[in-house]
């Protein structure tokens, strides 16, 4: 077939801006992935099939303990929106659509705004934070999260003086999240922090782990990570962040008020009514080890709770 003789290019042939921008990102990502593949010892990361993220700073908050293998961290997940099992979440969540995605910042703030996930990710430099993660069930992991401290975003929204708490909400979409078709918990999943906990420098919004974007089963595209609290506080796939005056009623408080409190700080002295919290099994190990007060972050966070009865405020 002969080529077009005139030099005019039809509008449909021009690559749309989003596409070529994406392509640039894709090329940058491919270059990073290629570099990582060529010099794994330099980047310290191997690809797990998610998009690599540009990390500005790395901090280890797990006393040099090696991270849990990616396979275990991405293959053993509590995410009741998909299943109450832990090993089937990865398969059940693989088709979750994480683009387009918006996160609404609302409530008692002067600058409410609906953020597009891609612009939100670019608002602050990304950091890698290696944290211990302790599940309320008695197992734990060490995970290199990628994200940024939540306080920057909250301060930018200019909280009202009346704001005392932050309420987080997960996506509610039973068509995509089969676990939501049954009322195991009250949907959507809701979690909450006291405002000073949310502003604490250890509290992060995470969009990645192991140097790449989050796999769906770990809470893509955006989750909370609060390392001194039991894992269920670190809410996944967030669509809404709302500042409130009243303490939010979280999904687990609703499900079992005598078993799951608002604070849910890791505390080896305060047992779950049905099992001990004194010890935990680090995934990958045989024996259980002692659980640390505030999951080992007491030095940084204990002052948030001075004078509080932690047995009552469990």
């Amino acid at each position: 077939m002969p080529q077009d003789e005139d030099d005019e290019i039809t509008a449909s042939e021009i690559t749309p801006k989003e596409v070529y921008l994406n392509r640039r990102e894709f090329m940058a990502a491919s270059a990073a992935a290629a570099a990582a593949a060529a010099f794994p010892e330099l980047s310290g990361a191997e690809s797990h099939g998610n998009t690599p993220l540009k990390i500005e700073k790395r901090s280890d908050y797990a006393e040099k303990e090696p991270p849990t293998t990616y396979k275990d961290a991405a293959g053993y997940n509590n995410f009741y929106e998909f299943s109450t099992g832990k090993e089937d979440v990865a398969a059940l969540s693989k088709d979750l659509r994480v683009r387009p995605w918006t996160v609404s910042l609302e409530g008692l703030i002067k600058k409410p705004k609906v953020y597009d996930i891609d612009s939100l990710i670019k608002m602050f430099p990304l950091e890698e934070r290696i944290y211990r993660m302790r599940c309320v069930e008695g197992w734990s992991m060490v995970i290199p999260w990628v994200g940024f401290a939540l306080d920057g975003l909250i301060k930018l929204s200019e909280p009202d003086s009346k704001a005392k708490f932050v309420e987080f909400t997960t996506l509610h979409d039973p068509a995509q999240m089969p676990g939501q078709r049954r009322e195991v918990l009250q949907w959507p999943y809701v979690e909450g922090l006291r405002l000073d906990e949310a502003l604490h420098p250890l509290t992060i919004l995470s969009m990645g782990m192991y140097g790449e974007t989050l796999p769906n089963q770990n809470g893509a595209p955006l989750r909370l990570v609060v390392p001194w609290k039991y894992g269920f506080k670190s809410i996944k796939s967030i669509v809404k962040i709302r500042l409130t005056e009243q303490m939010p009623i979280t999904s687990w408080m609703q499900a079992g008020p005598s078993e799951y409190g608002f604070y849910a700080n890791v505390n080896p002295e305060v047992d779950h009514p049905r099992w001990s919290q004194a010890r935990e099994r680090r995934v990958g190990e045989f024996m259980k080890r002692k659980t640390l007060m505030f999951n080992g972050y007491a030095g940084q966070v204990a002052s948030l709770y001075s004078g509080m009865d932690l047995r009552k405020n469990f």
Partner: protein
Amino acid sequence: MITPKKKRQLAAGLLFLIPCAYLIWAGLLHRLGADPVEKVIHTTGDWALRFILLAMAARSLTTLPVLKWIAAFHKPAAGAALFYATCHFLTYAAADQNFSIPEIIKDAATHTRLIFGALAYTLIAAAAAAMTPMIIKRIGFNPRLHNAAAYIAATCAAAHYVWLVKKDLRTPLIYAAILAALSAYRAITKVIEVKKPL
């Protein structure tokens, strides 16, 4: 000489070891997932409960003419229940409590769930021991006591399971339902038996 019943029992005994063989095979190949210890504790616990229920069914359902043959499963199932319950307890004692008896006692004393587990285990062991020729020879076999032990053991084991689950009670409730059905069947057949001579 091996009677057909003995043959059936031997075959059943070997069959009942398949879950154990699977755990060993998967363990050696690192196919037990992120927390293999928990997988072993939970799987052996599941099978202990399943075999108690099977042992009970093998005793009570033989009154149905079509199910007479399952009577042969009673002893192997009871033995398997004891075997899996022992593995269940030993894995917990070793990996979770480092074989520390004071720690185990402390754990049980503060959590009712574990008292039910311990009670279930003791009763399974007693019920299984009561079927050994040595005990039968010395003190005879008391079927009513034996059945009572089995029913209480199963109830305790089911409660021990229900109390483990965080929120999704579907699986433990299936076991509870089977137990309830077996109990109801037993109660009905008892009533019929009592009424017959009248």
